[in-house]
């Protein structure tokens, strides 16, 4: 028993290095994908202190719009442009109808409102696109689809999917762009101000409406990227909404307000989960992935209650 827990997994890693590398790669890819979802959450949380539960459905929605337009004969790139437009409209609508009337309300109320939004979008999305899963138009968008196998002589091989590599590149670019946008511009500061205190932000002349429309739009773009990447891995369907839960531990681990936190958190969870499942999961019958991420996050939290990169929780009287 002890052997199985403490020694055997490492022996395995050593014995099958190609496999271990593959596991790491899968962990990396999963991490990047989780990070993409988490990124959407972070943007909105950072800007308003709102935990946007609807991010998951926005991913589905963006993906479905893209594919749905394409199915109806719109060329891929035009469909992409139109989808971006649709995310803009969504952002504006959310700001107008949900956020604006709820300014200065407690976080939990805003969380609840985004859940209401989720319901609405599920109904609306299925109403428009139907519940059938759709296939992502990966090739039409010019994304690579093949795979490369790197061989290690006779020690086996590691298979890298090109789409996964593309996902990693896109994620990194997105993080960089968003990071620059939010940290180097005055908007970045304003965002954090809004998250701290809506009313005070209003009082110094920060336009909440404008800020919110911007971040919801940014979150919409992230959702679209996420939708394309996840869609390429499986399908674009409403079941995809569930993967949004995977973003929670990532988010919490990284800290709700940190863009790099989302990436680092994603990677920790991605690696931890895959290694845990593959080398230790078998001991308890497998499938521990469903909760391992939360336990990993929980352990980190016990040492840093605000997450790895989160802002300190202010306790002062």
């Amino acid at each position, binding site marked *: 028993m002890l052997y199985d827990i403490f020694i055997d997994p490492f022996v395995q890693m050593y014995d099958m290095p190609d496999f271990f590398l593959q596991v790491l790669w899968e962990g990396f890819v999963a991490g990047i994908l989780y990070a993409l979802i988490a990124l959407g959450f972070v943007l909105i949380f950072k800007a308003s202190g709102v935990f946007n539960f609807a991010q998951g459905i926005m991913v589905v929605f963006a993906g479905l719009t893209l594919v749905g337009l394409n199915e109806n004969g719109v060329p891929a790139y035009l469909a992409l442009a139109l989808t971006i437009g649709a995310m803009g409209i969504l952002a504006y609508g959310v700001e107008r109808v949900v956020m604006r009337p709820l300014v200065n309300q407690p976080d939990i109320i805003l969380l609840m409102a985004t859940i209401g939004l989720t319901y609405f979008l599920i109904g609306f999305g299925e109403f428009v696109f139907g519940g059938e899963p759709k296939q992502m138009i990966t090739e039409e968008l010019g994304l690579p689809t093949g*795979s490369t196998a790197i061989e290690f002589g006779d020690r086996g091989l590691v*298979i890298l*999917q090109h789409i996964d590599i593309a996902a990693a590149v896109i994620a990194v670019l997105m993080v960089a762009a968003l990071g620059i946008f939010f940290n180097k511009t005055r908007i970045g500061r304003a965002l954090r101000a809004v998250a701290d205190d809506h009313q005070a932000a209003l009082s110094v002349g920060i336009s909440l409406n404008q800020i919110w429309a911007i971040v919801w739009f940014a979150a919409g773009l992230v959702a679209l990227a996420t939708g394309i990447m996840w869609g390429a891995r499986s399908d674009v*369907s*409403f079941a*995809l909404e569930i993967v949004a839960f995977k973003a929670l531990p990532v988010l919490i681990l990284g800290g709700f307000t940190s863009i790099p936190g989302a990436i680092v958190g994603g990677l920790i969870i991605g690696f931890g989960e*895959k290694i845990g499942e*593959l080398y230790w999961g078998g001991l308890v*019958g497998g499938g521990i992935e469903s909760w391992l991420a939360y336990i990993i996050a929980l352990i980190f939290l016990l040492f840093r209650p605000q997450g790895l990169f989160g802002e300190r929780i202010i306790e002062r009287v």
Partner: protein
Amino acid sequence: AAQAEDSNYVPLLTYRTGPFAASGIHIANGMHDYLKMLNERDGGIGGVKLELEECETGYNAQKGVECYEATKGKGALVYNPYSTGITLQLIPKAGVDKIPVLSMGYGLSAAAVGSVFPWVFNVPDTYWDGASVVIKYIGEQEGGLDNLKGKKIGYIFLDAGYGREPIPLLEQLSEKYGFELMQYPVGVKEMQNQSSQWLNVRRDRPDYMVMWGWGAMNPTAIKEAVKIRFPMDKFIGVWWSAGDDDAAAGGDGAKGYKAMNFSGVGSDFPALDDIKKHVVDAGLSSTDAETIGGTLYNRGVLNSVIIAEGIRTAQELTGKKVITGEDMRMGLEALNLDEARLKELGLSGFAHPMKVTCDDHAGSHPVFIQEWDGSQWRQASGWIEPMTDVVRPLLEAAAAEYAEKNAPWPARTEPCPN
């Protein structure tokens, strides 16, 4: 029940929403369209129209019960829950409310034992039948069941009642034939995120993979299998992992993927033409003509064929036009869908002839294997008989255990029509 005097009421618990909509929609369309076609073409069954009502369950047990409660008072003849969870909830109610449950090829395997479960039907096969067919087929590929010794067979399944159901039988067979069974559960939340499972597969290198998936799990699994370059011809799914969309998701790489099936492949049947003519082209269906002939669509059609034949048989047995749930139960129990009848229905070759007896509500009918050729399914084997000798005793034991656990489980009092 105080329902209209001139129609037979058939509620359809379907799901076109939720995480399993991907599979559920085709089933729902097939079920609905065939019955609707009977209404349009023949004016119903035995001269009495069918009153159809869909109730959306979203594959959710709570909503399923709600649908059941809402419709049972309207004189429902039979329930097709299309979810193992909902089926389990309805099984004990069926006898009390006197409405049979038809779980065609899913649900509780033990319900095949008619003496214990007079109100539940799972023609044409139970999951255990299915599992035994898969093993038998793999044995054939390997040149005999004896050659299975020392082989590794992987079993990837939806980690819910549905996917776990075949495990006892597989375990028994693994003991009997000496192959190693490796399990890869996929949580409902992990359906679209199976890379760990497939990494495990890659490490364990099983000789064959068997899949018990549903909804979004299927296409994801096929994609992942392609990704790790698992030989697709050694990857066999249950009949619920046999959707056209499921396989198509894997692209070219999915060529060679196999699945069990017990309902017709393709749309080349007169009855399906009638559906197209009377229902789809008339704008009475929510699907378009292309999906007719898809595996899951046809499955839905077969389900409705059984319902319709059950009603017809009941009408014959009782001499009534408008029947009740109790009559329906008798009708189903006396169901005999032979070759001649299939031909009459315009469905010759659409399914293996089926017969239900009071003792055996599943019938352990033969199943065939189909193969994906990159754009559509084609039949890849003849009809394979399940290993009834292994399955039946297991079913009986399970039924006895169920009755014991749910004691006092009512003894069968319903007369046997045949």
